C-alpha cells in the first residue's frame, strides 16, 4: 500500500534557526498536504502542495512530484512552532494517508 515516510523523526532547534522537514511517498499523489499538531491537540492544515513551491508566512513547501518527495521549510523558528508536523497524501483517492510526523522542539 501507499507509504509516507518523514524525516527526521525529531528535531531540536534554537529560536531563530531554520527547520527543514522531509516527506517521501511511495505512490503518485494528487494531493499532498502538511498538517501541524500541537502537543496533545488536534490537526490543522498548513499547506496543500501537490507540486511546485508554495509559501505561506514563514513556511515554504517544495514538492517534486516525479521524485515523490516534498519538503517543508520553516524560517526563523519560534517557540510556538513546537509540535508535530505531518505529511499526508491521497494517492488518487478521496482519503489521506499520513506519515508518522516530525516532532519539532524550539528552545528559547
Amino acid at each position, binding site marked *: *500500500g501507499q507509504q509516507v515516510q518523514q524525516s527526521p523523526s525529531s528535531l531540536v532547534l534554537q529560536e531563530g534557526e531554520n527547520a527543514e522537514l522531509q516527506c517521501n511517498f511511495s505512490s503518485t499523489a494528487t*494531493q499532498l*498536504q502538511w498538517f501541524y499538531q500541537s502537543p496533545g*491537540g*488536534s*490537526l*490543522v*492544515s498548513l499547506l*496543500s502542495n*501537490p507540486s511546485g513551491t508554495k509559501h505561506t508566512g514563514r513556511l515554504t513547501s517544495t514538492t517534486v512530484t516525479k521524485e515523490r518527495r516534498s519538503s517543508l521549510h520553516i524560517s526563523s523558528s519560534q517557540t510556538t512552532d513546537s509540535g508535530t508536523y*505531518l505529511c*499526508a497524501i*491521497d494517492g488518487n483517492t*478521496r*482519503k*489521506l*494517508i*499520513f*506519515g*508518522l*510526523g516530525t516532532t519539532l522542539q524550539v528552545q528559547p
Partner: protein
Amino acid sequence: EAAVTQSPRNKVAVTGGKVTLSCNQTNNHNNMYWYRQDTGHGLRLIHYSYGAGSTEKGDIPDGYKASRPSQENFSLILELATPSQTSVYFCASGDLTGSGNTLYFGEGSRLIVV
C-alpha cells in the same frame, strides 16, 4: 472556518462494552473520516463516508462500525470494546478534490478501555 465537534472528549469503557463516538460538522462537507492515532503508528483511517447513508471501510476497520445518518453527523461504534482499542480518535470532514481543499479535524476523543 470549518467546525468539527467530537463527543465525548474523554471516555473510559469496560472490555466488552459498547462505545459510540460522535462527530458533527457544520460546513456541509460531503466527506467525513474517522482516524485513530497511536504512538508508533501515526494516524490510521478506520472508516469514512462520502455522504449521508454511505460508509466505507478504511485501512483498519476490524472491530469498528460507522454510521452516517445525515450530512452533519458521523458516528464510530465499537460494539465490543477491547483494550487494544484504547487510543485517541479523530474525526475529520472535507473535500479533497480540487486545489487547496483540505480536511478539518475535530479535537479528538481519548478512549481508554479497561
